[in-house]
């Protein structure tokens, strides 16, 4: 059995079912992200693990212990909040030492551990400051240190980076990952930022309307989305209409072009299905290995720096494609007729 075991969890607020049958096992030392749009129930699941909400149904086990009915202050869980929630009346050191003091540890032991953790987050010289004397990024590190100091069984982070600006967000997320791996602590990280989730997680749970749509490694989630929701939510996606010619052998028609997917389809002949395609799998012009060639016209060009996103009108549809910037080759002009090529294996068939 997994170290942290969430079993058929449900939560209703009044008649509103917010979490519907959520099951997940997390191994010891694993870093799992909950990714999903606003209001899908990420925070609610996390708060049930922390003990701040009582599940309507289902159980939560940590180690060998059923903690479903255990109050929050006896769960040995470290929690980091979006709004830092540092105690304004305590110094950084006192904030970090709070949990140890509650646990009844001696002064010397507390001082040693606080020093250790301050070192870990790289703020050793700021121990005697008050929270209001720190920047947002520093405050969040202190909050992380405070959560880690009592050596919790599980670390929970609820959108810890959302209040910070972009640069710090990236550096702090890498630091969180480094510290997590160094300590080997079992971690759940809630975010609605897919890049964040993809970059630091061992596994991602994509949540949608109170259920886990897909659980998998970032690579799996991105390249083999199980549902249309996952495909659309994670990364940018082209959806291409295709008419099924023969379901058993997987032959379809995209506009005027016949494409053999070489996979059986769960659809009847003549039915219209959606094929999904990442922008980076579409190339401008004919490319070796990409044997499905469609012709169209440049509709939009977005210069994003290292990447250029081009939108090409093909038949009645618009395909996005990404190319790298090349200093000696300016991007094509709008209206120019072009050909785009796709590898048939990159075409994803996603369930509705």
């Amino acid at each position, binding site marked *: 059995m997994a170290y942290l075991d969430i079993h058929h969890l449900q939560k209703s607020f009044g008649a509103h079912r917010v979490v519907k049958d959520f099951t997940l096992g997390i191994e010891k030392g694993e870093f799992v992200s909950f990714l999903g749009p606003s209001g899908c129930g990420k925070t609610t699941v996390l708060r049930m693990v922390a003990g701040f909400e009582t599940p309507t149904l289902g159980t939560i086990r940590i180690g060998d212990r059923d903690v479903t009915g255990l109050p929050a202050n*006896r769960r*040995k869980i470290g929690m980091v909040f979006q709004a830092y*929630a540092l105690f304004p009346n305590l110094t950084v050191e006192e904030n970090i030492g709070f949990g140890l003091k509650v646990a009844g540890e001696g002064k010397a032991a507390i001082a040693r551990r606080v020093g250790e953790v301050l070192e870990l987050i790289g703020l050793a010289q700021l121990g005697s400051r008050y929270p*209001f004397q720190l920047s947002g990024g520093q405050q969040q590190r202190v909050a992380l240190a*405070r959560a880690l100091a009592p050596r919790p069984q599980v670390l929970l982070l609820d959108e810890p980076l959302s209040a910070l600006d972009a640069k710090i967000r990236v550096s702090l997320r890498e630091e969180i990952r480094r510290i997590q791996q160094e300590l080997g602590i079992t971690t759940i990280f809630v975010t609605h930022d897919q890049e964040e989730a993809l970059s630091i997680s061992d596994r991602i749970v994509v949540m949608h309307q109170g259920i886990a749509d897909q659980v998998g490694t970032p690579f799996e989630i991105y390249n083999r989305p199980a549902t249309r929701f996952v495909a659309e939510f994670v990364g940018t996606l082209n959806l291409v209409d295709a008419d099924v010619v023969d379901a058993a052998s997987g032959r379809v028609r995209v506009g005027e072009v016949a494409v053999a997917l070489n996979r059986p389809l769960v659809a009847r002949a003549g039915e219209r299905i959606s094929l999904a395609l990442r922008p980076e799998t579409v190339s401008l012009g004919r490319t070796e290995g990409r044997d499905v060639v469609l012709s169209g016209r440049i509709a939009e060009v977005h210069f994003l720096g290292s990447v250029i996103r081009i939108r090409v009108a093909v038949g009645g549809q618009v395909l996005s494609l990404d190319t790298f910037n090349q200093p000696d080759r300016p991007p094509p002009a709008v209206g120019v007729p072009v050909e785009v090529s796709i590898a048939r294996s990159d075409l994803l068939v996603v369930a509705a």
Partner: protein
Amino acid sequence: MTGKRLWSWFAVALGGLYFLLPLAGMVDFSMRMKRGEYSFEAYRIVLADPQFQQTLGYSVLLALLTIVLGILLVVPTAYFVRLRLPGLRPIIEFITLLPLVIPPIVIVFGYIRIYNTSSVLPLTGTWWGTNLLLLFGYATLALPYMYRSVDTGLRTIDIASLTEAAQSLGAGWARILAVVILPNVFVSVLSGAFLTLAIVIGEYVFAALLNVNSFGPYMVWMGGNRAYEPSALAVVAFAITWACMGLIQIVTRFSRFSTVRR
């Protein structure tokens, strides 16, 4: 523009005169005890009076106890109402306002009827009982000020997150209230506390009807029996009140940390 300016100054001056003239008159009168010269004779007599020292000491002690009781009563109540029962807030607020609406004389008559010597709980029969009754009565009188200031203080901090952070670190309710909540609303609690001090020190009705020798009845007795000393006493009482107000300012200014940006 200048015309408007002039009129506002005129209004301020008028208001100032309305408040300051009687005060100035009182100070002036209190210093005329010796014929033909200004002196602090009346103050000397008042301050040297053992009755003054005893009643003021008693009232200050009672005020401090009232403050402690008020904090113990109000901080947890205001905290839990905000955290768990926000729907109850208007009701609690209404209850805390009642002491402003119901005259003290009515309250104290109620006390005397309920707790007289022939009742089930004859509090008025003993010294301890009477003092306890007075303490509870004063805590009631202070409730509107105490509750309001604490509640305002709680609004400036994110009590839900702080509570959850403390809980996840293993803290129970008592520790959360004492270590996390109280210190962060301390400045607000203090302003409520100083108002309480001012109220209790000058209170007359409760003390007189419960027959307790506190500072209020002493002032009234002085007023009825002496000429110059009551004015001196009034000035002293005024000074104490203003000193309290000043202390609020100082403490607010010099608190080490601040949850609100200054």
